[in-house]
């Protein structure tokens, strides 16, 4: 398998990842992504028919606990790390069109 990576592909995926790629960098980044995807393409040589995927190396099961009320972090301390806050809330631009 040899996947061709175009500038379009890189722009499309960068947009999905909410990243902006400046015009001056798209060429170099596309070449680098092509090299890395070529490395990833090597895996198609491996016969994996009938092999279960591993999500976790050691069997991990859901861990449950009682759903009891515990103290939360102080609001003021949490908001202290926010780039902008107002009246005890995070301050964000309009999310929906009016």
């Amino acid at each position, binding site marked *: *398998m040899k996947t061709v990576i175009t500038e379009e592909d890189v722009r499309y*995926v960068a947009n999905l990842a*909410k990243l902006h790629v400046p015009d001056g960098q798209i060429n170099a980044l596309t070449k680098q992504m092509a090299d890395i995807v070529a490395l990833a393409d090597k*895996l198609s040589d491996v016969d994996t028919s009938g092999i279960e*995927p591993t999500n976790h190396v050691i069997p991990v099961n859901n861990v449950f606990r009682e759903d009891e009320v515990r103290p939360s972090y102080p609001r003021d301390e949490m908001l202290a790390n926010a780039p902008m806050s107002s009246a005890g809330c995070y301050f964000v631009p309009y999310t929906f069109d009016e």
Partner: protein
Amino acid sequence: MELYTLTASEMHELLKTKKASSVEITNSVIGRIDDVDATIGSFLSSTFDSALDTAKTVDEKIARNEKIAPLAGIPMAVKDNMCTKGVKTTCASRMLENYIPMYDADVVAKLKKADVPILGKVNMDEFAMGSSTETSYFKKTRNPHNIERIPGGSSGGSAAAVCADEAVYALGSDTGGSIRQPSSHCGVVGLKPTYGVVSRFGLVAFASSLDQIGPITKNVADCAKVMDLIAGHDEKDSTSFNIDYPNYSANLIPDAKGLKIGVPREYMGKGISEDVSAVIKNVIKQYEDMGAIVEETSLPLTDYYLAAYYIIACAEASSNLARYDGIKYGYRTKDFSDLTDLYKKTRSEGFGDEVKRRIILGTYVLSSGYYDAYYKKAQQVRTIIRNGFSDELDKYDLLLTPVTPDVAFKFGEKSSDPITMYLEDICTVSINIAGVPAISVPCGVNRENLPIGVQLIGKHFGEPTLLRAAYAFEQSGFFTPQKPQIKSVKGSK
């Protein structure tokens, strides 16, 4: 002999016998940082006042003849991706330049509970993505053995600090070699524990199924002591194992007799430098002389390690790093037109190039139409790799390989081509894929006097055997690491 040159075990003896106080020891190490860190560049932030407060507490306990913990009063450094309450935790990224956590990582809480003076936070590759600490947004860290060279990465600040006696030990994190590779390049001991042995609560996530915190120390006995402190179940990390943890220090015996060691031939072949290969062959002979049974063996799919690793690690990273959106914490761009523009500009300005590359690759392999071909495929290959390690580790007590293909390289030598940099991790990534523990132990130098490490790989939860084998080797006197000569530039800051 300056106090700062001593190991944690030696310092503990001095404290117990009242030959030195923790304040004296801590001041000695702080003085060392003042002397050499302008040259080495390990620290991103320092917390000397609180370290000295902790030291005073320990001295008061000693004065009252109270028993102190093995690492109490012995100053250390923490990689800057572990949360420290009230102290900046930047991940060496512009994105978190001003982030001040309101809680401690589980490992940090354990250090504090054991009265360990924390000297500060140390440099790393941005979000732990890199093998040279060159991707740090803030500064370069230099290899104390040769300041023209990188210290390794991503835990480069941790390894350089321990090597330069700027910390008695340090915590690092390892996703694909980030503890072992810098330890090897700096000539110190570094252990990546079994996945699930050390809580990841409060460790800023890179690739959650691969990340693990571990010790970087001056010798193997100190490594066991740090493991005694940080290993254990934590209910705040659902992948943390609830088992009876051994006392790692108590199991240290300088005896390798009868240990069965496998040497996978794929790790000794092409790409490994002549000097590294020669030193590792002598290490193998040394183990045989110590009574170990060493055999050549083989591991499957070694040519596919890097591909599987980068797919899995980047996929997980793209998901984990989606949280940096400029809303709740971290960097926010100044000018934006709407919410999407805010996200895009924030992330593009806040992340460095390597982080962005990995997010884009991770998003690509998880995107519709490519998921099965890349991500699922990599998870299947992961099964084969993991089973390969299990089979070999059923036959052998441990496996022995180089840590890196060659010694520490020069600044800029590999940063222009991502793939060249990724090859630096060829001997280490598979261990994280399999989730087994591995330790890097100093074992020699190359013709330019640069450190070389040997990697010992154990079974799941096999740290006691790993530490025993490493301890036996260290105690055999086969190799004694030399302290680097660092020119003091005190007062130049």
